[in-house]
C-alpha cells in the first residue's frame, strides 16, 4: 500500500442497549468526543465528517451533531445505506483521505431503536371499498403473508434454509447452536446489550419468530453509537509515538451493491455481493482468509451467520456447516467469529453496527479487548450487509 495507506487512530463505541435519557445526537456526541480523545486530536483537525443514521435519514444528524460538539464548517456527508450505513460513513471518510482532500476524517454511526419492533413491516393501506391495484406488482393490498414474507426474520430464515437446500447439513438445532456461541461470547463484552449465556434448550424453546429463528437468534433492536478517526499515512507519521503505536491500518475498505442474479427479485441475494466485497478486500489487502485472526460478521439472524462463513471464504464453498461443526468460529477455535457477541447479543443499532464491528477488531489488534482479547491478533475482518442491498468489508492490520 505504501504512502496512500489510511490509518485508524481513534475509535469508540457507547454501550449498546437502552439509553432512555439520551437522544440520537447525545449518543453520537459521546462516541465522537471519545474517539477524538482516543486519537489525541481536536475537532479542529478533522477535515471531513461522515455520519450514518437510518431512522432519521432526512434530519441532517451530522449537522445536528456539529451543533453539540463543534461547528467548524467542514463538509458533512449524511449517509443512509440500510444496515451498511455505518460502514458507508466510514467509506466516505476513507475515500476523502485517500483522495487527498483532507488528512483527517471522522465517521460516526448512531441509532436509537430500543422498542422499535419488527423492521421491514409496512403499515396498512388506506381502506377502500373497491379493489384497486397499486405499485409495480399491481397488488390489491399488502403482499405480506399473502405472497410469502418480506419481514427480516423470515427473509433471513429463508437465506439460511436456501443454503441448507443447496448443500445439506442444516437443521434448526445447528442454527440454534450458532446463536448459543454468540450469546456465550457476549458474556465477556461489557458493551453488549445482552450478556446472558443461553443453553441450547433455552434458545430452541424460546418464542419462535420465523422458523428456524427463535427470539434469541434474532439481532436485538437497541440504542448505540460508534465513531472512528482516520488519517493519512503522512499525518500518522507526524503523530506522537504513543498514537502511532496504537494505530491500526485499514488494509482494505470495500463497499458493494448486489449485482443482478437470477432469482434475486424473489429472495434477496445476500451472498454474491458479500463474496464480491470479500474478494475485492482480500485483493486490496494482499492477504487471504487464512491470515485472519478474528472476524466480526453480520449475524443479524443466526441463519445469516452460517452463509457468511462461506461468502467470506472462511471455509470451502458449501462447507459452512462443517466449518461450524469443527468449532472454528468459537473464541478458542481456529477462526474466531463474533467474539463481541455479534448482533444477536451485542445488539444492532443499525447505523452504529457498521462502525462498531470495526471498533471490535481495532480493540483486539491494539491488545485492548480486555477479558475477551484474542491473544496476538494481528489481522481482522469486519463485515456488514444491509438489505437492498449494500455490503461493507474492512480488513484491518496491526503493523506498528
Amino acid at each position: 500500500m505504501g504512502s496512500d495507506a489510511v490509518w485508524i487512530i481513534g475509535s469508540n463505541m457507547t454501550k449498546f442497549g437502552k439509553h432512555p435519557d439520551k437522544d440520537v445526537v447525545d449518543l453520537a456526541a459521546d462516541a465522537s468526543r471519545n474517539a477524538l480523545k482516543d486519537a489525541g486530536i481536536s475537532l479542529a483537525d478533522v477535515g471531513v465528517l461522515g455520519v450514518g443514521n437510518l431512522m432519521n435519514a432526512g434530519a441532517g444528524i451530522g449537522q445536528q451533531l456539529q451543533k453539540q460538539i463543534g461547528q467548524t464548517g467542514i463538509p458533512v456527508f449524511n449517509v443512509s445505506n440500510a444496515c451498511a450505513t455505518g460502514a458507508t460513513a466510514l467509506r466516505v471518510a476513507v475515500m476523502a483521505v485517500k483522495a487527498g482532500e483532507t488528512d483527517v476524517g471522522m465517521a460516526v454511526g448512531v441509532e436509537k431503536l430500543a422498542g422499535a419492533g419488527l423492521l421491514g413491516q409496512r403499515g396498512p393501506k388506506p381502506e377502500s371499498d373497491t379493489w384497486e391495484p397499486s405499485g409495480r406488482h399491481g397488488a390489491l393490498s399488502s403482499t405480506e403473508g399473502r405472497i410469502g414474507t418480506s419481514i427480516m426474520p423470515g427473509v433471513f430464515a429463508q437465506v439460511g434454509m436456501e443454503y441448507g437446500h443447496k448443500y445439506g447439513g442444516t437443521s434448526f438445532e445447528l442454527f440454534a447452536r450458532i446463536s448459543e456461541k454468540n450469546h456465550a461470547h457476549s458474556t465477556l463484552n461489557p458493551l453488549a446489550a445482552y450478556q446472558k449465556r443461553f443453553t441450547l434448550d433455552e434458545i430452541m424453546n424460546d418464542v419462535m419468530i420465523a422458523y428456524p429463528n427463535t427470539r434469541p437468534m434474532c439481532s436485538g433492536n437497541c440504542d448505540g453509537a460508534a465513531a472512528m478517526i482516520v488519517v493519512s499515512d503522512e499525518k500518522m507519521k507526524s503523530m506522537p509515538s504513543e498514537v502511532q503505536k496504537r494505530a491500526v491500518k485499514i488494509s482494505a475498505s470495500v463497499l458493494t451493491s448486489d449485482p443482478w442474479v437470477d432469482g434475486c427479485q424473489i429472495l434477496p441475494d445476500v451472498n454474491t455481493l458479500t463474496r464480491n466485497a470479500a474478494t475485492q478486500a482480500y485483493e486490496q489487502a494482499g492477504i487471504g482468509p487464512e491470515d485472519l485472526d478474528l472476524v466480526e460478521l453480520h449475524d443479524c439472524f443466526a441463519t445469516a451467520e452460517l452463509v457468511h462463513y462461506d461468502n467470506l471464504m472462511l471455509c470451502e464453498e458449501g462447507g459452512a456447516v462443517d466449518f461450524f461443526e469443527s468449532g472454528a468460529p468459537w473464541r478458542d477455535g481456529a477462526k474466531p467469529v463474533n467474539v463481541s457477541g455479534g448482533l444477536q447479543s451485542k445488539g444492532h443499532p443499525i447505523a452504529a453496527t457498521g462502525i462498531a464491528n470495526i471498533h471490535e477488531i481495532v480493540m483486539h489488534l491494539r491488545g485492548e479487548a480486555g477479558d475477551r482479547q484474542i491473544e496476538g491478533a494481528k489481522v481482522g475482518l469486519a463485515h456488514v450487509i444491509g438489505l437492498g442491498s449494500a455490503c461493507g468489508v474492512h480488513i484491518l492490520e496491526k503493523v506498528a
Partner: protein
Amino acid sequence: MSENQKSEQKSKTGEIPFVDYLVLGEDPYLQANECESCGARYFDRRNACASCFEDNFRQVPIATEGEVTSFSIVQMGPIPYVSAVVDCDGTSVKCTLMNVEATPESVKLGMNVKLMTYSMGEDSEGVEAIAFGFEPASS
C-alpha cells in the same frame, strides 16, 4: 399489465387478480416479463433490464409446478404461515404455501408443489379478487 387491460379484465370476468402477474382463467398461471435480449425474468414492471440494461420485454408463462428451495414459518402474527421460494422450472417464485400445516414437520425442502388460486372476497361492485398460493402436489 396496463391499467386499461386491467379494467378490461375486471369488467369481462367480474374477477381481478391479486397481482398483475397472476393470469386468471380456466387454468390460471403466473406470467413474467422476460427480457428479449438476455432472458432475465421479472414479475414487476421494469424500466429496463437489471441484467443487461435493454428495455424490450415479452410476457411468458411460468410453469405451475415446482420444488420448494427455501421456506420459513412466520409466527409473528395471530396465524402462522409458510413463506416459501419455489423453483418453477428454472424461475424462482415467492409465495405462501397453502393447504399444508404450518409446522416444520409438514413442510420440507425439496417438496413438490403446484399453483392454486382462492378468493379474497368481493368488493362493493361485486368484483371478486383472486389470490394465488402453492400447495403440495400429489406426485
